[in-house]
């Protein structure tokens, strides 16, 4: 029984990280209807930036905040410089650009920081919280951070004029332009937000999986599964999907299919959801009038 609880809680902790990255995927998907395959590598790169700052003696939370700001700017720049020229290109072309970005970030990180693993400190104290033996304090902390990010994203879209403008630009670009919203910039901000949220995912994941250039490859796959499961156009759905995938993965690996095909569980979820309910558990079914 305690082993089962252990599996569930360690699944929840990883699930929280999948959920944050899934949120980042949702940010870009909402605006462009594309899944950014380079999201994980961008997050990994942000984490290295944070590591470099902490290593040079900066306090954790200062580095944390600065990394988020830098990632936001970086994300916007990527949209302006790399993605913008392909705005009207076919979907496949853009997918290739995403894969190109993935490879570039991965190789540059390896070249600059080497492929040996690095430790990335957790901001949370080493002591367990409330005598909790099932989760380390970092794991509990990561889950709290997930909820905080989710609440911020929700509040941003629900209560701020900028959030409203972004939603409008995503849903109806032509009308938005007519009422004076700069649609191009909304896209850039969307990329910036995605990069910033991804940076949080990276900084929460690194203390658990260690920092190395390939750390986000598996995580991105699970995050994608989580986003698809919950509905890739719905932040709440994506977050719940992320948690669910984290737990399902552990339970299936330990008790159902065995660890050999644990990773395949993610793929089965993706394919299964797309076949049975393409919009995901909480997603809206998209209807286009023709």
């Amino acid at each position, binding site marked *: 029984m305690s*082993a089962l609880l*252990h*599996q569930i809680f*360690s*699944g929840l902790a*990883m699930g929280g990280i999948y959920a944050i990255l899934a949120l980042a995927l949702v940010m870009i998907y909402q605006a462009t209807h594309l899944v950014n395959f380079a999201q994980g590598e961008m997050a990994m790169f942000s984490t290295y930036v944070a590591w470099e700052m902490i290593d040079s003696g900066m306090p954790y939370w200062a580095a944390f905040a600065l990394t988020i700001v830098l990632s936001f700017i970086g994300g916007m720049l990527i949209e302006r410089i790399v993605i913008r020229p392909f705005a009207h290109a076919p979907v496949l072309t853009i997918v290739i650009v995403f894969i190109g970005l993935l490879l570039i970030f991965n*190789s540059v990180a*390896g070249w600059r920081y*080497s*492929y*040996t*693993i*690095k*430790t990335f400190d957790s901001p949370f104290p080493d002591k367990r919280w409330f005598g909790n*033996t099932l989760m*380390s304090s970092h794991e509990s902390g990561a889950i709290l951070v997930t909820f905080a990010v989710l609440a911020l994203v929700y509040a941003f879209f629900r209560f701020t004029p900028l959030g409203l403008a972004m939603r409008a630009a995503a849903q109806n670009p032509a009308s938005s332009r007519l009422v004076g919203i700069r649609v191009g910039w909304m896209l850039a901000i969307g990329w910036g937000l995605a990069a910033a949220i991804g940076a949080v995912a990276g900084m929460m*994941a690194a203390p*658990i*999986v*260690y920092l*190395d*250039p*390939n*750390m986000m*490859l*598996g*995580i991105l*796959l*699970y995050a994608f599964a989580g986003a698809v499961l919950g509905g890739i156009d719905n932040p709440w759905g994506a977050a719940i999907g992320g948690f669910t995938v984290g737990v399902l*993965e*552990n339970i299936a*690996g*330990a008790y159902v299919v065995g*660890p*050999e095909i*644990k*990773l395949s569980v993610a793929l089965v979820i993706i394919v299964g959801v797309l076949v049975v309910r393409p919009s995901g558990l909480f997603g809206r079914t998209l209807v286009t009038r023709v």
Partner: protein
Amino acid sequence: MISRRTLLQAGAVSAAALASGLRPARAANAVGVTEAEIKIGQTMPYSGPASAYGVIGKADVAYFKMINEAGGINGRKLNLISLDDGYSPPKTVEQTRRLVEQEQVAFIFNSLGTPSNAAIRPYLTENKVPQLFVATGAAMWNDPKNFPWTIGWQPNYQTEASIFGKHIVATKPGAKIGVLYQNDAFGKDYLTGLKAGLGADHAGLIIKEASYEVSEPTVDSQIVSLQDSGADVLLIAATPKFAAQAIRKTFDIGWTPVRYMTDVSLSIASVMKPAGLEKSKGVITANYGKDPTDARWKDDEGYKGWAAFVAKYLTPADLIDSNAIYGYGVAATMVQVLKQCENDLSRENIMRQAANIKDLELPMLLPGVKINTSPDNFAPIRQEQLESFNGESWSAFGDLLQG
């Protein structure tokens, strides 16, 4: 503007380059060898995910440079052409063909990677080109019957796992063993070796096997399952990142099995430190070389020679890099083989001598570890020393063991 003339000129130049590349083989029985030099080929992952191993190639080149400066071997200089394959087997094949067909090397030496070497083995076997001292620990290189042109060097994973198996039977006969292994040739070699070491009578001691894929984020879930099985011995057959995760997780969940760990992950800097020095206490591994960070060897002749070599031919960071030390040892073995060849440097004789090393001791191998090969033994190093981690460094215990 490219005129027709410049185009033609360019064509002529490249045709000439092609032609010079395809010059006829030298005396058929000693390809790649002249009175002045021996041409040797190699592929290394200087870029890509395994680039940390690239330093092996640098150490090989540096060692041969040292030999050349001392006059070479029988007056011949060693010319090692070391090419980048990015740890990608298709590229290894391409580069190896280039080395064999264009550069006309005498043999391939110390190319790195299990998949890479597996990809070029059929080609080299077919063309009867020696594939010497491959830089991988898989057991498949010790197969002289089917692949008489390929030979390994370091103790292979099966050898090491069987040493662990024998040690478990000797010290903890009623052990309940859990195994965490990477789901590929490396991890499976470990399982095979462990079973061989335990012997048929004790194979039942393994009560739980849990595998992981390299693309998984963590092995935390596997560790929890292994704990749940009731195992009191844990064998960690994992690459550095996952080994560090496994060590940390066992500690964090308050599980205290006897932990054996593959020597692939014995690096203090990239495994024990990330896992936590306190959490790594008591981990057992097996080793065959001298640890340069171990104060025991400070005044050792072998270590001093190594330090002098690094000072002159490598960079200071390489002094404590176990990969650089590995290259230093392999290159010395190669030089021994070429010396044994005397003036018959045909591929046949090079292979014959590679399979005829007797009790060779090297400066950076542990005292008593001897390199031996014979026509039916293509596993040069078979002895290892058990070591346990004391929170700062590895300390040896017990005698040298043979797998």
